[in-house]
C-alpha cells in the first residue's frame, strides 16, 4: 500500500498542536523523545501557550533491546530542565509503533519524579503495538508492512519530511 504523496509533516505539527490545544491542562510540560519527537516538541512549544522550555529525552539507557543490540550509537543527553513533580506531561514522538520506546521513556521520566499525568502525542500511529500504549493525540493513522520504517527528517530547508525505508 504505497503512501503517495506523503502528508506534509509541518502541517501535521500544526494539526497536532490544534488537537492538544483543545484539551490542554494548565501547567503542562512537553517532553520530546530524541530525535523526531524533539523536533516536533520544539514546534509545538511555539504553537501552544506553554512556557518555552521543553524536556528532551533519549531512551537509549532504558531500551529493552540493549541485551540483543547493545547501546545505540549517537546517544544524546537527556535534559529535563524543570521539576516534573505533580505536573501534567505530554510525551512527544514522531511515530508510535510497538510502544517499546514509549515504555522506556515513561520509565526514564519516573526517575525524575512523579508527574500528575503522562499523555502521548505523535504525528503517526502505524499500528503493530506490542504493549498497552495509546496515543491520546495523533494526526495520522497508517498501516505499514513490518519491513517498512517510517522516518521523519529535516531537509536542507529545516522543514520536516517523511520518507519510507524498506528493510530486507
Amino acid at each position, binding site marked *: 500500500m504505497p503512501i503517495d504523496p506523503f502528508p506534509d509533516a509541518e502541517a501535521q505539527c500544526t494539526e497536532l498542536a490544534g488537537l492538544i490545544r483543545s484539551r490542554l491542562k494548565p501547567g503542562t510540560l512537553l517532553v520530546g523523545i530524541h530525535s523526531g519527537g524533539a523536533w516536533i516538541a520544539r514546534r509545538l512549544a511555539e504553537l501552544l501557550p506553554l512556557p518555552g522550555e521543553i524536556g528532551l529525552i533519549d531512551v537509549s539507557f532504558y531500551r529493552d533491546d540493549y541485551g540483543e543490540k*547493545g547501546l545505540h550509537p549517537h*546517544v544524546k543527553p537527556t535534559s529535563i530542565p524543570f521539576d516534573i513533580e505533580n505536573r501534567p506531561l505530554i510525551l512527544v514522538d514522531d511515530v508510535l509503533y510497538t510502544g517499546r520506546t514509549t515504555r522506556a521513556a515513561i520509565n526514564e521520566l519516573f526517575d525524575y519524579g512523579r508527574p500528575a499525568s503522562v499523555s502521548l502525542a505523535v504525528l503517526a500511529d502505524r499500528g503493530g503495538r506490542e504493549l498497552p500504549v495509546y496515543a491520546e493525540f495523533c494526526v495520522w493513522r497508517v498501516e505499514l508492512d513490518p519491513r517498512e520504517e517510517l522516518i521523519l527528517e529535516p531537509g536542507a530547508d529545516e522543514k520536516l519530511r517523511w520518507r519510507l525505508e524498506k528493510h530486507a
Partner: protein
Amino acid sequence: MRNSLPPNPQIDANGALTHLLSIDGLPREIVLNILDTASSFLEVSDRDVKKVPLLRGKSVFNLFFENSTRTRTTFEIAAKRLSADVINLDVARSSTSKGETLLDTIDNLVSMHADMFVVRHVSSGAPYLIADHLNRLGRSDIHVINAGDGRHAHPTQGLLDMFTIRHYKKDFSGLRIAIVGDILHSRVARSDIRALSALGATEIRLIGPKTLLPAEMDIAGTRVFNSLREGIRDCDVVIMLRLQSERMNGALLPSAREYFNCYGLTPEVLALASPDAIVMHPGPMNRGVEIDSEVADGPQAVILNQVTFGIAIRMAVMSLLAGN
C-alpha cells in the same frame, strides 16, 4: 599458538570493543564514541535517581590486585549507576596469597557467573592475560576493563583526561599539552600520550627531570623539556603527574623540596602558560611536591571535575562493552 589470536584482543571480529585494555590500537571512532556516550551519562549523575537500568542483572567484579581507593570507588559507582551488581574482591589479601594463580581465580569467578572484570594489577599485561584467557574459553560475553596495569596503561584515566580536555577546549587541533613529572613510571602519561596522538593534538610536551623521562622510542611524536618554565610556555593544558614517594628512595630524586623548586606548579610558573590554560591531575595530589595549593585550589584547576567525568567515562565504557 599466538598466531591464531586476533591482533588486537580488545576488538572482536565485527570491529566492536569487547575489552578495554589500552588506548593503543583503539580506532579513533571508538575513542570518540566513548567520549560522546560519556557526555550523555554525565547528566545521569545529576538526577535525583542516579541510576539507569542498562546493566541490571549483570555482575561486575572489581579485582584490585593493587590498592587504589579512588579508581575502585569510581568504577563501583559507575557500575552501580548502571544498576549492575558490584562485587569487590580484596584479592591482594585473599586467594593469591594462598597460592592460587590469577587464571584459577578468574575461572572460579566465571563459575560464579561474572559478566565483567575490572582489573588493576602491579604487573603490566595482567588484564591482557585475563582477556586472552576468556577469548580462548570462547567467553566473548565476559568483558575485561584494565584499571591500571604496572607501568603500562590506565585507559579509563586516559579517556577521562581526553573528555576533560574536550569539555573545556572543544577541539584537539591547535592544542599544546604539557605532561609534567614522573613520565617514566606513569601509566597515566602513557595512556594520555596515545590518546592525544589518536585525537590529533598539535603538540605534546613531556616535562621532567632526565631520570624520570622514558627512553626515546616510547615518546615518539612528543617534545621533551627538562625545564618546566621552558616547557610550559603557551601551553593550553597542563597535566601534572603524581610524584610517587617511593621514587625518592630509589635515588632518582634528591628531595621533595628540590623537586618542588624545579617541577612544582606554582602560580608564577602557571602564568607562563596560555592565560586560559587548564590544570589537570589524576590524583591523589601531593600538595607542595608537584603542585602548589594555590594552583590546586585555583580557578584554572579542573582536578575535581576530572573525578566527576571519570564516573561518566567508566559508565560509557561498561555500557558499550556489555552491549557488544
